[in-house]
């Protein structure tokens, strides 16, 4: 490819990014369908404040925990501690 034709280079690159990430999305979706989360993996919604460098895990096992409640906790927490964030909510069923 003629490097001077940067429009084509950019179009190729952007297309490649889209195509590749779409493939990854499809493949990972497939994998999750074939190997779904089993019950034994545990249903444990928890809250923990973690170091900011590490991405928080997603809310797991939504069914057992009201998302609105999570949102409320997260929101309230962030009011109090703006530089921390909620990565886990641990519930003790009583």
């Amino acid at each position: 490819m003629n490097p001077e034709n940067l429009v084509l280079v950019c179009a190729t690159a952007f297309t490649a990014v889209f195509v590749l990430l779409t493939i990854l999305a499809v493949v990972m979706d497939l994998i999750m369908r074939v190997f779904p989360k089993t019950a034994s993996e545990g249903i444990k919604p928890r809250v923990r404040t973690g170091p900011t460098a590490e991405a928080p895990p997603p809310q797991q096992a939504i069914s057992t925990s009201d998302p609105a409640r999570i949102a409320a906790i997260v929101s309230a927490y962030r009011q109090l501690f703006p530089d921390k964030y909620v990565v886990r909510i641990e519930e003790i069923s009583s």
Partner: protein
Amino acid sequence: MDVFTELIQSSGFAGLDWRNIVMFVVGGVLIYLAIVKHYEPMLLIPIGFGAILANLPLAHMSAGVGAEPGLMQFIYKHGIKTEFLPPVIFMGVGVLTDFRPLLSRPFTFLLGAAAQLGIFVAALGAFYLFGFSPHQAAAVGIIGGADGPTSIFLASKLAPELLGPVAVAAYSYMSLVPIIQPPIIRLLTSKKERAINMPNAKPVSKLAVILFPVVAGTIAMLGVPSAAPLLGMLMFGNLMRECGVTERLRRTAGGAIVDIVTIFLGISVGATMTGESFLSLATIKILLLGAVAFCFSTAGGVLLGKLFNLFLPSGKKINPCIGAAGVSAVPMSARVVQKFVSEETDGKVNPLMAAMGPNVAGVIGSAVAAGVFLALLG
């Protein structure tokens, strides 16, 4: 008196010119921003101090193309020119990144792709408007990927003469994400769109989390082989994180190794910023293009989110704001989206987890973009 004269002449004071002094100020400003404004301090402290070192006359402490041998050039030559340190940082990024939010909402892969838009806009602008060479334009454009090591990796290969300003722009704008992104998101979304709640996330099995670095990594590296140093190490780090049997490797790879590499990468990148090379029109152009790149990347992510909503049924619409997190700048950008949406909805909508999806997808996205640039221009 003779001794004293000789002492002065062999000192750096004699060789000092105005550009050195301006660069001392630039280095000082970067250090100031790191300390007071908390702008990416892990990188801007070393880069800022490296910029000071590079401008000490006769000290041989600069690095980069044509630099004289010395400590910084030694680190640059063996760590950056060899393309060793940036992939190692990526290993650490892999160790520190949880891809579950992405896997639990696979469509966010696409938002992470769209939010690379700024890369290409800035590259084209650099080439057609500002007269950069194609190689330089690609190196400048990658700032829009909002990913420091990717920017350093690509710039050191395609346009090492621009490494300093590209790295400074990348890290600075990553820190400016809380200022750059909210107005753009506000401009492009309606009050109603911002209030879309998206509580549903797929459960992610442990097996899927472990297969991700192996399978997705292999596919991505097959797709764009020239991105393999970055993607390979990212996925290797993530495998060490998730496999559960290499705890001590994980801890060291995400701890001591990242720190060691950050220190040497940062100070030697900073040491490329001699007044002679940094104080030029090109740097101003790069800073300008970098800002443009971040804006367009933000917009790209948001707009794809809106496009999705055209086709989605009413109950399944997504909050387009999370597309902005696709620029990467992990995890800053996802938190900016969370804060923005939460404030706009009085705390009712909190899309932090949803925003982490495009956020980490954006890391892969910009590495892929860098790989394609390398393949076609390298």
